[in-house]
């Protein structure tokens, strides 16, 4: 059966150009980028070229990009690394309630170590109120971490406004930009953040490689000690093929960003408008305008998400849900909970995230199949009355 992939927020396919750039660095150019001889220099040059591409993608300086293994590692490094480095200055950290678990659980681990964690609420569309950040900053606040774009409902947070406050108060600001980088304009200076996390596989690069932006002068303690790679901030032998892949994905993102945004926004709007007009009793989660170009998220009343996802899977579609049954924890998504969604409606959530490999025809097919699948499940549901 023909498969249609609509889960680009989970991961994206590696672009052919990216894969081709990576291949030589597995076997032919296998050298350790830290070695002094030819093979090492060759690998090291590739790593530095990749760094330069990431630098250009987010408007950083070459000295401010550090390679990691993932967005999760970058998030952990930002939260725990700053917490450890500034532990004598203060132990208060502010995060939003809709952060990715990599930020949220890193903060909760610190709470067990005696740090004070404030979890800020969001409004019904998922926006953090910058005034809440302002009100909650205290003398011992060392870090604020608010994501740039939410992975479930796509909401774009007002980071520029938050950074004005954190700058004024002399508090570091980290933003998890894993969903945004490569898919949405990201510039560290216009955002005003001190730390930023990104991940290659969310924008057509390989899995297993990410980066963290650390503004010059920002104090951070390494989580990985070892041979002193990345100026001692992140030891571990360079994942040269992965880093090269991240570099190539960044080069593509720089040249294609505008067309990517246009293409995915168009498909997303078609999905949102189509679902709204074809299916009754639904809720659009997140903001209609200030959302990631590729993200659509709905609550489809009277049905449960896992059944919906596997019914659509059987029809050839890969999509996602925030329902309790579909999660390891058997709890509904903390994001849908934070925006105040009725827990029963949260069970019927559907996330559709489009990417560059999707077409209008695929969206048409989805809009033809989805209402049928929904009706079949609704007719089986004791909560639905026709």
């Amino acid at each position: 059966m023909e498969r249609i992939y609509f889960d680009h927020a989970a991961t994206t396919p590696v672009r052919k150009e990216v894969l081709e750039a990576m291949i030589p660095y597995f076997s032919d150019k296998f050298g350790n980028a830290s070695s002094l001889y030819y093979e090492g220099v060759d690998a090291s040059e590739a790593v530095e070229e990749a760094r330069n591409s990431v630098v250009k993608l987010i408007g950083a300086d070459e000295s401010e990009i550090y390679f990691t293994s993932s967005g999760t590692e970058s998030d952990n490094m930002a939260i725990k690394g700053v917490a450890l480095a500034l532990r004598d200055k203060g132990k208060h950290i502010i995060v939003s309630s809709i952060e990715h678990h990599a930020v949220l659980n890193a903060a909760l681990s610190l709470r067990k170590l005696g740090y004070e964690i404030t979890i800020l609420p969001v409004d019904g569309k998922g926006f953090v109120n910058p005034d809440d950040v302002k009100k909650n900053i205290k003398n011992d606040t060392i870090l604020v971490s608010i994501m740039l774009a939410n992975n479930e409902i796509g909401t774009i947070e007002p980071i520029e406004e938050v950074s004005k406050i954190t700058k004024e108060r002399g508090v570091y600001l980290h933003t998890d930009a894993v969903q945004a980088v490569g898919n949405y304009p990201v510039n560290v200076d216009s955002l005003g953040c001190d730390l930023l996390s990104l991940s290659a596989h969310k924008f057509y690069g390989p899995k297993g490689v990410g980066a963290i932006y650390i503004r010059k002068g920002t104090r951070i303690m390494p989580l990985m000690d070892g041979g002193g790679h990345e100026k001692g901030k992140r030891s571990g032998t360079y994942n040269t093929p992965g880093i090269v892949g991240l570099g190539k994905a960044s080069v593509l993102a720089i040249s294609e960003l505008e067309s990517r945004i246009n293409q995915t926004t168009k498909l997303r709007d078609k999905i949102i408008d189509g679902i709204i007009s074809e299916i009754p009793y639904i809720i659009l989660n997140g903001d209609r305008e200030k959302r990631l170009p590729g993200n659509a998220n709905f609550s489809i009343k009277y049905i449960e998400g896992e059944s919906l996802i596997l019914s659509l899977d059987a029809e050839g579609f890969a999509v996602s849900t925030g329902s309790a049954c579909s999660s390891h924890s058997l709890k509904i998504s903390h994001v849908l909970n934070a925006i105040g969604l009725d827990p029963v409606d949260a069970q019927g959530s559907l996330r559709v995230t489009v990417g560059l490999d999707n077409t209008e025809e695929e969206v048409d097919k989805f809009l033809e199949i989805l209402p049928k699948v929904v009706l079949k499940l609704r007719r089986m549901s004791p909560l639905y009355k026709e």
Partner: protein
Amino acid sequence: MYNEKVIEHFKNPKNVGEIEDADGVGEVGNPVCGDMMTFYIKVEDDKLIDIKYKTFGCVAAIAVSSMISEMAIGKTIDEVLEISNKMVAEALGGLPPNKYHCSNLGADALKAAIEDYKKKREGKL
């Protein structure tokens, strides 16, 4: 995650629906937790001659509802009361471990419908 038998029951669930003049109705679960089942039974000469249900829930909940409806139709009340949630899961060839508690409610729902039938009958007698 799910075996083929579970998926088959999920894709083509048997006996879905409601019985308007049901002799007993049983409802278990809570949509807030993700699973809810309403079972309807028709009883004649102490036998469950018809079973229908409506289920809100995950793949496991729907497959369990379908499976137990097939297992119980035509059986006597005493025989049906012998069916446990575990037996339903086994008849399906097993469920993922985390689904045993939340979604495997078919036997409870059917028992609740039988309780309802007994209460109604006592009221009539």
